[in-house]
Structures are given as structure tokens and as C-alpha cells.
């Protein structure tokens, strides 16, 4: 669905503050996929995702949406942004309207839709993130809790009915229950509406839960790419890149170090439990991924 070819972006060219944010990045995200984009702070993740909906124009290289170069002169960038929704970090800081309904309706209004259609989409989008439009719609967004504001901001993007959603740290700063709720809603959107998801996150547990594939960035370059399971099976490498590892994967690594033959590619508590029980019972782990 989206393809980057050799994308490079240089900030503040021609000044003493010139800096290359990403360099020669090529990647592809297929429709319906769920991809995690991970990397330490300053690795260029945020710069990269802003190229995917045309907010930044590459210094070199091209970005294609359905095989159309989105930076070509004749392409309507607004249509690109409607199709590829981008949720910024701390999106609750971008709410501005007097009511939740009006704020969520901002995107659809910008698309030039009629009032009835705007109302429908707003209600639908709020329902998608688990907020009752009748209860929350008339309230001021500034009276909501952090988790609720975050969900209103997500609804604001969903109301544009994008085909792809890019989420930059959607759970940062929330309590565990709010984190779980938001991840659950995103998972449901993917399965129910076939939304393509790109998740930018430091939370490896969130990436492990949500994403089938991960792309690892380091200092502006793609340094690893593959199935989540395979990438996370090498915790030492991730740690060297300044990244965390899901705690259970770290535990599996430590067990192997201590001579217990646990399969390394575990992502969830459940998988880890089964893998450890297998090892203790002397059952051989699945041959895949075992050196």
C-alpha cells in the first residue's frame, strides 16, 4: 500500500544546524498489515512517518501510495492525508473545539462533507474508541481524563475514514488500564475494519502485542526488518540499539544463558509460560529459530 524508495531528509539545509534525520530509507507496508516502527530517540522514526502522509517532502527519494508518487505536482496532498491518518504524540494537546463532537468533526468538515455525514461519522468514530457519543459528544474535551482525551484524538482521525493509521506513541504517559484499552481498540479496528496499522513505540510489549512485522531504525537508517517474533528473539541486539525488549523475551534469553533450552521467540506471557513448561518437561521446542 505504501512504499518508500531511498528516502532521505535533511533538516535546516545550508545552516550550521544542518542535520540528516533519515537516510536512504526504503520500506513497504502492505494493506491490512500491522507494522511496528521502533528505534531509540533521534533515530528518525517521527521524521519517517511524517513522510508517509506527505507532511514532509523528502530531500531525496520517493514515497508511493498505491503506486502514485504522493509528492508529484498533480497529487492532492489533502487526499493523501485523508487516506493515511497520522496520530502525533500526545494528541490530546491538539484538541481545540468547545465540544467533543465538534472536535472529532473537524476532519470530516475539512473534507467538505455535509452536516449529516459529519454527524454520522463523528458518532461512529467515537463508538469505535469506546466513547458513547450521547454522553461524551456534548462535553468539553478539556474536562476529560487523559486517556479519554487521547481516545477523542484518535476518533478525530478515524472520522476521516482513513485506510491506514499511523500511531506515534499512542499509550505514552497513561496508566496501565488506559494503555490496555487503547491497544484493544486499535486491535479491534484492524480486525473489524481492515485498517492498516503502523505503530511507532518504545513500548516493546505494545509492539509485541499489536504488530506482525517490525522495522528497526538506528540513526536514520533501517537496520533490521522482519517478523516481530524473529526480531525480538535477539534481545542483545535491540538493547545495543538503545531499545527495550519485552520482559518475557528477556527472561527467555536469560534462561538460555543459564542452560535451559527455552525457545527464544516468545512475545507474550502465555507463550513464555508454555515455552518454559515445554523446556522443563524435556519436550523439544519447535525446530524453527533454534540455533
Amino acid at each position, binding site marked *: 500500500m505504501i512504499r518508500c524508495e531511498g528516502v532521505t531528509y535533511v533538516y535546516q539545509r545550508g545552516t550550521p544546524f544542518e542535520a540528516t534525520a533519515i537516510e536512504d530509507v526504503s520500506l513497504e507496508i502492505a494493506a491490512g498489515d500491522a507494522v511496528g516502527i521502533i528505534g531509540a530517540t533521534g533515530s528518525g522514526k517521527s521524521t519517517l512517518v511524517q513522510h508517509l502522509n506527505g*507532511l514532509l517532502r523528502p530531500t531525496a527519494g520517493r514515497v508511493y501510495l498505491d503506486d502514485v508518487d504522493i509528492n508529484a505536482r498533480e497529487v492532492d496532498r*489533502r487526499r493523501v492525508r485523508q487516506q493515511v491518518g497520522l496520530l*502525533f*504524540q500526545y494528541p490530546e494537546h*491538539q484538541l*481545540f473545539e468547545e465540544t467533543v463532537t465538534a472536535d472529532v468533526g*473537524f*476532519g470530516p468538515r475539512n473534507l467538505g462533507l455535509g452536516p449529516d455525514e459529519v454527524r454520522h461519522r463523528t458518532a461512529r468514530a467515537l463508538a469505535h474508541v469506546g466513547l458513547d457519543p450521547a454522553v461524551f459528544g456534548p462535553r468539553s474535551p478539556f474536562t476529560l481524563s487523559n486517556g479519554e482525551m487521547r481516545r477523542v484524538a484518535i476518533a478525530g482521525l478515524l472520522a476521516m475514514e482513513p485506510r491506514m493509521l499511523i500511531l506515534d506513541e499512542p499509550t505514552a504517559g497513561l496508566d496501565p488500564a488506559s494503555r490496555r484499552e487503547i491497544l484493544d481498540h486499535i486491535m479491534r479496528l484492524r480486525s473489524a475494519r481492515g485498517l492498516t496499522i503502523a505503530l511507532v513505540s518504545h513500548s516493546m510489549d505494545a509492539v509485541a502485542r499489536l504488530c506482525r512485522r517490525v522495522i528497526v531504525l538506528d540513526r536514520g537508517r533501517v537496520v533490521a526488518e522482519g517478523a516481530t517474533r524473529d526480531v525480538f528473539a535477539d534481545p542483545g541486539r535491540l538493547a545495543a540499539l538503545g531499545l527495550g525488549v519485552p520482559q518475557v523475551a528477556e527472561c527467555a534469553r536469560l534462561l538460555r544463558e543459564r542452560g535451559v533450552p527455552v525457545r527464544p521467540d516468545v512475545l507474550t506471557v502465555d507463550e513464555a509460560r508454555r515455552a518454559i513448561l515445554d523446556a522443563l518437561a524435556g519436550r523439544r521446542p519447535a525446530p524453527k529459530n533454534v540455533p
Partner: protein
Amino acid sequence: MDFLRGLMLGQYVPAESPVHRLDPRTKILGTMWLVGVLFATRSLAGLVVLTAFLGGVLAAGRIAPAYAVRGLRPVFWLVGIAVVFQVLFGDSGGHVLFRRGPLVVTRENLAAGAFYGYRLILLVAATTVMTFTTSSVELTDGLERLLRPFRRVGVPAHELALMMTIALRFIPTLFEETETIMKAQMARGAEFARGSLVARARALIPLLVPLFVGAFRRADALALAMEARGYRGGEHRTRMKELRVAVRDYVAAGMLLVVAAIVLLPPSVWRAVAGR
């Protein structure tokens, strides 16, 4: 969105140089002195001397000339307009070069326009050299110290300096925030540079409301953080860095005096000096 960053040109360029090391008070007063000299100058030769002097300061401050010119670019427009006004509406006497209807261009006016325009550029250049080589902290410290004697007549020197410090500290943060909010709203289909003036003004609401809400949130958080670190106004407060005037400051002051003398004293005086 690079235009927001563009506005920030003319900012401090960190480097180790004799100009950077000068006491900020020397640089503030020196710049004011130069501006005064510029206004008093009547001769082209004076401007040439001052240009050479500023060029020398730039070189001593390790600032690339190309970068300095870039920093001046926004001013060129202003200078252009000033020159056109001078040429078109100055005194109509003198050698006429061009005439069409009420429009009269004389050689004298053209020369005067170029002179004033160039003087304006030098004026901006002088202050830019100061901001290139003086960090905001030093600038604030310098101003606070210069204003301190006026406390007795009710000038809140400490409070003004603190306000400036905080403003300078948060300008980059606010720029980043503006950029993020603009992009976030554009991701929801907002347009900031399209349509009539009214439409553009309305389009600013989704930018300004979150920006103000954010600024207030930050102000609250900052006030709390300052209180938590024992801030209670200027009383009882001491400073880690005390400004101290060094030999190089006297040297700089001496050079400024010499430049002013060269530019401002009539040639007859110099002839007299040379003739003796």
C-alpha cells in the same frame, strides 16, 4: 515547515573566539555606541570604515560571511522599500536622471537613497553580530547588571531578566510545538496557506487554541517547578556567575572609540594631527 526555522536565523552561533569571550555588557554598550556612530555619520568614507570594522569583528568572531548575509536577508526587503521612498519622494532639486509625470529621479536622491539604505543594513548587521556572538543567557545577565542601578527608581531588573531568560528558554520549545500542532491539524485536513484572508484567519483557530492552552499548561508547570526549587523572587538570591570586566573589554572599548573618532571627526582634525 522550514520557514519557522528560517525565522530563527540570526541566532547565537556557539564558538570560541575573542568576541564571544567579551563581557556581554561591553557588547551591549558597544553595539549601542556603534548604532549612535552610524546615525551621526554623514560621509561615505565613514560607512566604509564601519563596514571594515564590522567585517573585522565578524572574522574575529569566527562567523562565516555567507551565513551573516543569510541572516540579513529578511532586512533587504525593508531596505529596498526605504530606498525607493527616498529616491521618489526626496528633495526634487539636483541633476535629473529620469522624469515621467510626477515621478522625478535625481542623481542626488539616488545617492542619498543608497546611502541611507546601506546605513540601515549596517545598523542591522551591528546588532546581528552581537546576537551571533552572545548567548541569550549572557545577554540577559548583561542587561540585568546594566539595569541594576535603576532599581532604585522602580525598574524591576531581576524580574525583567528572569522573564527574558524564560522567554528565550521557551522560544525553541514553542516553535517546535507550533510546528507539531500545525502538522497534526494538517493531518486532519486543515489548510493554513489557502483561501481568502478571512478563511486564513479562521484557519488559525485550530492552531492558536491548542497553542495557548499548551502555553498556560507549561507556565503552570514551570511555576510549580520553580517553586519546588525554592524560588521566591529576587530577594535573598545570589548568582553563580559574576560578570567581570577583563583587559580585552578595555581593548574593545578603545577600538570602538578609535573607530568613532575616525568616522566622526572632520578631516581637518586628522590633517592637523598628521601635519604635526
